[in-house]
């Protein structure tokens, strides 16, 4: 059984700090698990396992959704916010801004749950904070 399947099983039956986890495997060449944290469902998290880490990613917005002319300011703000934000950082995949966290392959189920709930909270927070930059 893969690490991601293992994780799905333990997430599906647990309540962590008042949150439940709604898991949906995404089919395709790359194994991906969509996790929605209860109370923070608007920002689903996508979990992938690579040969060195567990990556948890939430997609914030596309570059094309941003107001013209404010992108440099936003980028600087994101770099500045990345450091104090607990457990998560901002990044980009293609033309999508993401917020993500990475865990070692040896992370326990509890570490993963802490990561998921923190990341979902950060994502909701970030989207609201960054609303002025959206078109």
């Amino acid at each position: 059984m893969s690490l991601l399947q293992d994780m799905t099983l333990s997430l599906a039956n647990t309540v962590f700090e008042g949150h439940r986890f709604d898991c949906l495997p995404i089919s395709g060449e790359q194994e991906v698990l969509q996790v929605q944290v209860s109370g923070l469902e608007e920002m689903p998290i996508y979990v992938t396992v690579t040969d060195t880490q567990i990556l948890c990613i939430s997609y914030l917005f596309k570059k094309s959704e941003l107001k013209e002319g404010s992108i440099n300011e936003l980028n600087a703000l994101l770099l500045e916010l990345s450091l104090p934000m607990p457990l998560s950082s901002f990044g980009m995949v293609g033309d999508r801004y993401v917020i993500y966290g990475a865990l070692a392959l040896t992370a326990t189920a509890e570490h993963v749950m802490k990561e998921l709930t923190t990341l979902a909270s950060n994502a909701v927070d970030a989207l609201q904070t960054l609303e002025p930059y959206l078109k």
Partner: protein
Amino acid sequence: MSVLRKIWTALRGSARELGDAVVDANSIRIFEQEIRDAQAAIDDSKRALTGVMADKMKIDRRLAELNDLIADDEASAVKALEQDNEALALEVAQRIAKREAERKEQFEIAERLASQIASLRQKIDAAEKIIADHQRELSIVRTTESVQKATVQIVDNIAAQDSTLSSARSSLERIKARQQRLDDRLAAGEVLARESGEQALDEKLKAAGIKGEAADANAILARLRARAES
């Protein structure tokens, strides 16, 4: 060229699609080959190392043996001299000379083996460093590709069935709606709490005869009496 630099170059390429390889397959193959070569070099060096270490242990044992034998002979020679047996002392001294010559030879071999061991260990360390470096770099490449592939899959899969990924605006609206629901529920809770508080007060007033049916009857009577008097 460093892998990060290669990835940077690839990502800047305008013709590139999300999910395309960031580093060409040939570079990856070369990398993997170098890791395999380094691993083979480690295996060879380790095999050689065990052989050399075994040889050195044999020599060390022989050196210890020679030291004991020479010490013994020296004691014997001293005793022979004490007995004024010059001839016997000389014979022992000759054996000591022979053993000392052998000890010198063995000692030189031991030195040579020790330097071989050191150089083999260095080779192993260097190969292990290459492997760690290459594996880290390969992992950067693989992670970049995994994340991009995953993104393409997620966009294709999810966008088709719901709007989760379609726009940040709609996510924001859903967040606001949820928070509004939460606020409404809190507010409703407060109203409920306040109402039940008011009700409790009314009950108390009624029980004290200040409010309620009896109080109302008295008020009506007073009003009627006032009208009759006017």
